[in-house]
C-alpha cells in the first residue's frame, strides 16, 4: 500500500495531474498529423508547381519549393491561355460562370424557399403528392434527362444560351432545396405561424415578415450548396452552352487537356487553383453563419 497516496491528510487534493506526452496523446496527434499532411500534400504540390517556370519543372522534383518564384503562369492561366480559337485565358470562363451561378442560385433559392414554406405551413390539397413527386425527381439519373432537356430548350429557344443553363440549374436544384426549406420551416414553432394568421398577415406577409427573418441559417446553407454545386458543374455546362459561353470548369478542362504543344504544368496548376478558389472562399466566409441559432426567444424559456 502506498503510504502517501492513501493518507487522508496531506493526500491528493485538487485536479488530478495529467501528463502532456502520454502514449495516448502521441498516438492521437501523430495520426492526425499524418492524415493532415496526406491531404495537404497535393495542394502543396499544386501551389509550388504553379509558382515555378517550365525549366525548373523539367528537373522533375515536384516537392522542392520554387528556386525562383514567378507569377507568370497565373497571369497566363487567367488572361492568355488558349482554348480553341479564343486566347483570352480563364477570365472568360470565370465571368461566364459568374453570370450562370448568380442568377441560378438566386432563382433556385427564391422558388424553393417559397415551395418549402407552402408545403410546410399551408398544407394545400395534394401537398403530399406534390412533395413526393418532387422528391422522386431527385432520384432520376441525370443522364436520362439530358436529351429531352436539349429538345425542350431548343423548342423554347433557349438552347445554347446562358439563360437556358440557368433554367436547367434552377430546376435541378428544386428537389433537394425544397426538401431543405420544407424541413426547416416545419421545425419552426407552428404557433408563430398561427399567431401571424390571427394578426391578419397573408401568405406573402407571413413569408417575408415572419419566416424569412428567422431563416438566415438555412439560406446560408442553401447558398453554399448551390454556389459550390453550380460552380463545379461540368456536365450541364458542356451540354447546354456554346464554346464562347462555356463555364470555368469546362474551360479549365479544355486548357488542361489540350493535346497540342508543350504541356505547361505550371499554367495548368494555376488555372485549377483559380477555378477552385470560389467554392473555397464561400466555405471560409460562411462557416460561422452555419451555427447561428436565430429562433431564440420565440418560445418561453
Amino acid at each position: 500500500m502506498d503510504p502517501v497516496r492513501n493518507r487522508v491528510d496531506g493526500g491528493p487534493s485538487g485536479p488530478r495531474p495529467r501528463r502532456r506526452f502520454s502514449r495516448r496523446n502521441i498516438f492521437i496527434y501523430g495520426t492526425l498529423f499524418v492524415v493532415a499532411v496526406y491531404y495537404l500534400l497535393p495542394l502543396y504540390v499544386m501551389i509550388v508547381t504553379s509558382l515555378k517556370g517550365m525549366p525548373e519543372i523539367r528537373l522533375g522534383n515536384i516537392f522542392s519549393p520554387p528556386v525562383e518564384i514567378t507569377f507568370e503562369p497565373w497571369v497566363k492561366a487567367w488572361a492568355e491561355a488558349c482554348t480553341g480559337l479564343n486566347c483570352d485565358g480563364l477570365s472568360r470562363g470565370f465571368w461566364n460562370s459568374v453570370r450562370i451561378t448568380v442568377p441560378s442560385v438566386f432563382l433556385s433559392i427564391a422558388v424553393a424557399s417559397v415551395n418549402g414554406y407552402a408545403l410546410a405551413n399551408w398544407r394545400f390539397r395534394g401537398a403530399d403528392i406534390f412533395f413526393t413527386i418532387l422528391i422522386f425527381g431527385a432520384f432520376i439519373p441525370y443522364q436520362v434527362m439530358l436529351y429531352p432537356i436539349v429538345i425542350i430548350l431548343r423548342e423554347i429557344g433557349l438552347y445554347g444560351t446562358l439563360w437556358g443553363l440557368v433554367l436547367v440549374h434552377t430546376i435541378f436544384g428544386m428537389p433537394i432545396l425544397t426538401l431543405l426549406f420544407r424541413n426547416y420551416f416545419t421545425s419552426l414553432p407552428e404557433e408563430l405561424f398561427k399567431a401571424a394568421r390571427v394578426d391578419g398577415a397573408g401568405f406573402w406577409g407571413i413569408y417575408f415578415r415572419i419566416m424569412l427573418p428567422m431563416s438566415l441559417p438555412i439560406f446560408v446553407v442553401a447558398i453554399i450548396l448551390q454556389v459550390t454545386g453550380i460552380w463545379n458543374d461540368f456536365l450541364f455546362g458542356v451540354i447546354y452552352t456554346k464554346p464562347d459561353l462555356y463555364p470555368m470548369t469546362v474551360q479549365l478542362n479544355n486548357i488542361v487537356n489540350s493535346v497540342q504543344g508543350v504541356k505547361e504544368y505550371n499554367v495548368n496548376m494555376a488555372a485549377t487553383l483559380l477555378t477552385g478558389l470560389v467554392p473555397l472562399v464561400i466555405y471560409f466566409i460562411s462557416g460561422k453563419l452555419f451555427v447561428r441559432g436565430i429562433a431564440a426567444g420565440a418560445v418561453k424559456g
Partner: protein
Amino acid sequence: MESVSIRDVSLNFGAVRVLEKLNLDVMEGEFLVLLGPSGCGKSTLLNCIAGLLDVSDGQIIIKERNVTWQEPKDRGIGMVFQSYALYPQMTVEGNLSFGLKNQGMPRDQIRERIERAAKILQIEPLLARKPAQLSGGQRQRVAIGRALVRDVDVFLFDEPLSNLDAKLRSELRVEIKRLHQKLTNTMIYVTHDQIEALTLADRIAVMKGGVIQQLDEPHTIYNRPRNLFVAGFIGSPPMSFLDGEVMAKGNGFSFRLGEHEVPLAGYVAETELAPKQAAIFGVRPEHVEIHHEGDVPETALYPATVDLEEPMGADSLVWVSLGGHTLSARVDSSQRFRRGDKVRIGFNLSMASIFDQETEIRL
C-alpha cells in the same frame, strides 16, 4: 347575451371524429374554461373558434355574426398561445403593432393603441426590447397585449401556463384573473389543469372524446359532477369510488357497502332512485370524517383500518380500508394516524355523489 355560440360543430380528420355535434354558448364577458385530458378536443375546438381550423359541419357565431367561413383576422378574436409565439426578430413594439399594420391602420393611431395597451399591462419600459430579453411573465403580458391592441371581442387562451414552473404559473394565473376583471372581455381558456380551471373560470366545460361532459360553475362541477368521468377528473386528491347497491329502506333509501348500510338521508338525488340498483358511491376525501376508536361522535359509524398516512403540510390524507374497499379521508395535520390503527369513519352525504354503474351518470 351570447358572445360566442357554437352550433352543432363537428370536425373530422379523415375518418377520425374529433368533435361531434358540439353546442356551446359563451356569455358576454364570461370567463369560460375548456377542461379535459389531452386528446379530448379542447384545443381543436379553440382553433375552430379562432378560424385556424375549418369545421366539417356546424356554425360558429361571434357577437351575432356568423363567422364560420371567415379568416381568423376577421373574427374579432385574439389568441394567446402556449409558447406565447412572440415574433423573435421584432421588438415588443413591433410585436404589438404587427396586427395593426396588417389592418393598414394609420401610424399615430397605432402608437395610441400601443401606449394604451402598454399602460394597462404595465409593459411600457419593455417596448424596445426583443422577446428573448423578457421573463416568462413579461412575455405573457406582451402576448396578451398583442390581442389587446387589436381591440378584439374575445380572447382565446391555449394552455398559456402549461410549460412554466409551478411558482410562475400560480403568479401568472392571478394576473390573468386580474386582467379579466379589468378588461371584462369574453375569454375562452383551454387547460388540462383543474386548479387553473377552478380558480379562473366563471363556468367550466369538461370535455372528453370531443363531447362536453358537463358545463357548469366550478362549484357545481366540483360538488355535483354529472357523471363518473367528471367526478374522477376533478379534484386532487381524487374522489374515492366504492361499488355497491342502492336499497330501499323504510321510507327512504340506503346504500349497501359490503356488510354496511349507509342510509341516504340528506343525499339530494338527481333522478328517482330505484331499489336493487347497482351503483357507485363517490365521496371526496374532505367529506369523509375519521376518528380514532374511543372518542367517536354518532355520525361516524363504520369501522375501518388505516393503511397509510400522507402528510401534505396543512392537512394529511389518510387511506383506510372499509370492508374490502379503499378510500381516503382528509384530516387536519394535527391528528396523527398510523398503519393498522382501528378507526371509525362517517360520510357527509349531502356532498357525496352516487352514479349508476352502467350509465355512469349521477343518480
